[in-house]
């Protein structure tokens, strides 16, 4: 059953509960997305105030995570959801943890922005950072879109493109290590950028996780820890059979 009709329960209260869950998740997602964008901009523009703002907002994300968990627990206890409803609740608890981790990583990037302001700008790495950040932000955005529309194709794109980010991350790291070997005095400053890159790479992974949760939600297939090709095959099998 691949279409999810959240609003067709006999119980209107149940409809409202699930809709609220979905809305709250998307709100938290929007906030997290903003955090990542702000943190990256704080590094790029050496904006200390913006970095501080990201760090302050972190507690708001934690609060929303707890709130979403509370809502999920209540729905499980009250409604004993089954099938797609059950998968929605499970998916949201899992994906909320991923969002919260993305928030943590944005916080780390903001920390690096502050460190770079104190230690002085890194001589290298900004181009790679901008490039990877743009890709990762797109991934987070697409993952949330995929959830909002229960869209498996978009989710697949996210999983596939996340591996591109991983590749680019490795290339960037190799380059920066070469640079540090040539100019050891820059090591501490370049390391700040490397930590930020590392955080971005992790954010990409979490976006990929969220996309996998969306596939679970729609198709009921657990595609975690599965190579992309195998995942694609399984989805084809599932949708082809219908």
């Amino acid at each position: 059953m691949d279409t999810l009709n959240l609003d067709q329960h006999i119980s209107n209260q149940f409809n409202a509960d699930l809709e609220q869950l979905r809305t709250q998740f998307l709100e938290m997602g929007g906030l997290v997305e903003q955090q990542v964008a702000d943190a990256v901009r704080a590094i790029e523009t050496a904006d200390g105030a913006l970095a501080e703002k990201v760090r302050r907002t972190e507690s708001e994300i934690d609060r929303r995570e707890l709130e979403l968990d509370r809502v999920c627990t209540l729905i499980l206890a009250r409604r004993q959801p089954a099938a797609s409803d059950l998968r929605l609740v499970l998916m949201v608890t899992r994906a909320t943890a991923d969002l919260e981790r993305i928030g943590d990583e944005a916080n780390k990037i903001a920390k690096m922005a502050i460190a770079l302001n104190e230690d002085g700008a890194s001589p290298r790495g900004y181009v790679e950072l901008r490039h990877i950040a743009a890709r990762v932000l797109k991934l987070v955005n697409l993952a949330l879109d995929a959830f909002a529309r229960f869209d498996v194709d978009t989710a697949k794109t996210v999983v596939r493109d996340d591996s591109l980010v991983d590749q680019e991350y490795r290339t960037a790291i190799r380059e920066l290590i070469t640079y540090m070997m040539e100019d050891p005095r820059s090591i501490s400053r370049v390391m700040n950028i490397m930590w930020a890159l590392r955080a971005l790479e992790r954010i990409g992974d979490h976006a990929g996780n969220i996309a996998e949760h969306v596939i679970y939600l729609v198709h009921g297939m657990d595609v975690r820890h599965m190579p992309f090709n195998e995942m694609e095959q399984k989805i084809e099998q599932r949708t082809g059979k219908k």
Partner: protein
Amino acid sequence: MHDILEHKSRVSPKVDLPFMAPTHPIAEPGQRPFAADDYQTVGSPFVDKAKFAMRDVNVFYGEKQAVVNVSLDIAENEVIAMIGPSGCGKSTFLRCLNRMNDTIEACRVSGSIQLDGQEIYSSKMDVVPLRARVGMVFQKPNPFPKSIYENVAYGPKIHGLVNRRVDLDEIVETSLRRAGLWDEVKDRLDAPGTSLSGGQQQRLCIARTIAVSPEVILMDEPCSALDPIATAKIEELIAELSENYTIAIVTHSMQQAARVSHRTAYFHLGKLIEVNDTQKVFTTPDHPLTEAYITGRFG
């Protein structure tokens, strides 16, 4: 060799059934109440070693068709749950399995229902031993107005399973133990069965059913008149009984179906919509109608 079978009180059947092969709906001329295309059974209705094998079963109450072309296997020692909205034919279908519908004058059954390869609607089939092999537990506990002991001993006596008093005592004790009731009633076996609580009465009825060593136990909403604790005890009992018996249970509680059964069959408007492993039905059902029902989207 294949008998075409029909309830004795009605006219003879019109169709030849190919052995074990489910066919398309056999509707009476001018009577096609259901759109066939949407309602093909999905999932895995058939098993390798079937205890019960039903093929193209149709049940009519007069002009009204209650069960439409249902084909399903029940495996040995399996617990199969039948769920669906009221009037979906699940109880009617269950009652076919030991010919309980025989008592309803206007009821007519066609198709093949085999228990261990024997047609149960065959004229050669004697319903009395059949109902001993396929016992039934009803929605409301219905102990006989006799003592607890007599309630359990009655079946073995009339079926002539025992001659000596000691053997009967043993059957009564074993059955009550298996039904999880022995410890609660062993000191008052002479008390009337009706003096027990609702949950105890229901377990007494289960003890009465298993006293005649059935192979299959049919349960028609066995817990709907019981409180949650008594319900939990019956569910526990179902799990234990499934080691020795094949159990088919009709229930309105989807959580109960999810808890006690191995496979779940979903009925809708007389049709068997989906049969799958219970785990699958309640997490990723194949059919949209199953999904709609178990998530409470219609009733």
